[in-house]
């Protein structure tokens, strides 16, 4: 059990800086997920913590000990790789026992620990098989077992589910949640899949260009993104972005001018900006309703309807200067393509960003919409 602390960590490969001056503390027992687009440095960061790569500058501490100069084996961390990386010529048992044997543990202790771990992961019946005789999901379990059996202070997972098919991925995802619930170790999990990130994380660290874009509980990031990047990276389908002008900023709302000339109210505090500034209005598809309700409504024509069973995605064209608006309808009969519709949304559902992509603070809702996480 240990806290992981990264202090002013930099990593470059030749001229190319991959991690830039990054500070981050992962609390003891936390399930921390690194999320980001490819090339954001999330895997590099994990390898730095593992000791498979050396920092260019900065310090890494695990459980208060400075491990920056220590080799991987002295850091008491275990890693599960994307390709599982099982030793192909060894049985599952030998794979799990390998690290313990190298650590000069007694034969009986090794045997007891391997069997206990195998039982907890339901892979006892696979112990005598080689990786080639195991399915993807089974290999994954053995790879997890190889990490668990060593009783490390910190677990590192490098996109462990990306090689599995969708069904198995959903099941294994839940298993990672249970594993953390049982072991209560510090876990660092790298993924580019936001569903994994949202469902597993105690704390989500969103990375961009080698630094932390935003970190916090997943719902806090979802409800209060600090930047356009965080707002659009989280959430499927993506947040709608509508170009707008700031007409006026009142203490408890802002008035926006939309491309079609209408004025809308947004529940954000835009006092820091001057009137007339160009801003971007962000609306999540699920926050937009069909029908004319309240002060904020838009007229448009349905261009496409995607039926997904329990809900449907409706694409609405409304103004040539703005892209189509995507809305998600729950229940009822969605409109047909070509139909004229009105869309509306509550002021509290708005996200507003300045020209540099920074979010204006959202005002807590008095009633109705969820207030979002506090962070």
């Amino acid at each position, binding site marked *: 059990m240990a806290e992981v602390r990264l202090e002013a960590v930099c990593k470059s490969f030749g001229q190319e800086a991959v991690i830039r001056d990054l500070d981050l503390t992962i609390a003891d027992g936390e399930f921390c997920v690194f999320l980001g687009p490819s090339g954001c440095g999330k895997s590099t960061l994990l390898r730095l913590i593992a000791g*498979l790569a050396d920092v260019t500058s900065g310090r890494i501490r695990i459980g208060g000990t400075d491990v920056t100069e220590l080799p991987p084996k002295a850091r008491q961390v275990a*890693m599960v790789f*994307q390709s599982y*990386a099982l030793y192909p*010529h060894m049985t599952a048992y030998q794979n799990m026992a390998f690290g313990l044997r190298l650590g000069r543990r007694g034969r009986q202790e090794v045997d007891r620990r391997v069997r206990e771990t195998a039982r907890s992961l339901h892979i006892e019946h696979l112990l005598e098989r080689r990786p080639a005789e195991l399915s993807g999901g089974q290999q994954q379990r053995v790879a997890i077992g190889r990490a668990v059996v060593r009783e490390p202070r910190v677990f590192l997972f490098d996109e462990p589910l990306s090689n599995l098919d969708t069904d198995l991925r959903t099941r294994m995802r839940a298993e990672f949640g249970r594993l953390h619930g049982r072991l209560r170790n510090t876990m660092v999990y790298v993924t580019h899949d936001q569903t994994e990130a949202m469902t597993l994380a105690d704390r989500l660290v969103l990375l961009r260009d080698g630094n932390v874009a935003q970190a916090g509980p997943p719902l806090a990031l979802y409800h209060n993104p600090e930047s356009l990047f965080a707002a659009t990276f989280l959430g499927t389908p993506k947040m709608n972005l509508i170009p707008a002008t700031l007409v006026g900023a009142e203490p408890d709302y802002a008035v926006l001018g939309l491309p079609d000339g209408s004025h809308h109210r947004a529940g954000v505090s835009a006092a820091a900006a001057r009137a007339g500034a160009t801003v971007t209005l962000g609306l999540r598809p699920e926050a937009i309703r069909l029908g004319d309700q309240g002060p904020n409504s838009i007229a448009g024509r349905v261009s496409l309807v995607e039926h997904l069973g329990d809900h449907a995605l409706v694409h609405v064209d409304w103004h040539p200067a703005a892209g189509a608006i995507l809305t998600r309808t729950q229940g009822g009969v969605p409109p047909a393509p070509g139909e004229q519709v009105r869309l509306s949304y509550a002021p509290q559902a708005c996200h507003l960003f300045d020209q540099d992509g920074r979010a204006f603070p959202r005002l807590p809702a008095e009633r109705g919409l969820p207030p979002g996480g506090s962070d």
Partner: protein
Amino acid sequence: MSRGLSRAGLYLLAGIIALAAAFPFYYAAITSLKSGDALFSMDLLPRQWHWDNYVAIFAQQPFATTIVNSFWVATGVVSVSLMLGLSAAYALSRNRFRGRRLLMMTILGVSMFPQVAVLSGMFELIRWLGLYNRIGGLMLSYLIITLPFTVWVLATFMRRLPREVEEAAIMDGAGPLTIIWRIFLPPLMPAMFSTGLLAFIAAWNEFLFALTFTLTHEQRTVPVAIALLSGASEYELPWGHIMAASVTVTVPAVVLVLIFQRRIVSGLAAGTGT
């Protein structure tokens, strides 16, 4: 029809190649069973079975010692080549360092020099090391023949092993030697068998170095001993003895190939990435 024809053509071609490859050895084998004037008559089948030549080569000179010498030299060369080759291949294929390509090219370049070019330099080196007329000197000199291809082949095979497996071993606390021996060696065994066998054959058949770096009968290896077999007078070439000796020393190589054939084939198949 044309299918049958092309099939027949294929077998015909294969037959010709097999005949061209096997006939010299076959002829050596039947010649070794002749004696006297019969040596100079052209026969495709042996008329009589004389074992005199085989008895003579062991009785008239220390041919058994020669075979033992050859065996030790070849075995030594194979073990050292494989050990050095494996560790060099690990360094060259798994690590990136300055001059890695240059080093690989140099290793390849060394193997391109004709043996005669390095002969005098090697002679001086061996004398300076005090290895002249010792089988240790032969082992050392054969390494310059066997190491380049051993390193190259093993490096090529090792590069195919996934990086993450090595990193998993590092996370498990394995050092470089443990990784080489316990993680990389087992999947590399077919490649080790193939390169080991090639190294064995190269050392077993080498002639020029063996002739130059040895002086006495007791230190000679098989190819030199055969070349220096002498007849009753200096005007007579003892063809019967030469052929008997040749057949005797070819057998171990053939037996080795037959024993390891299966592993070599699977090694070659693994090398093509299937």
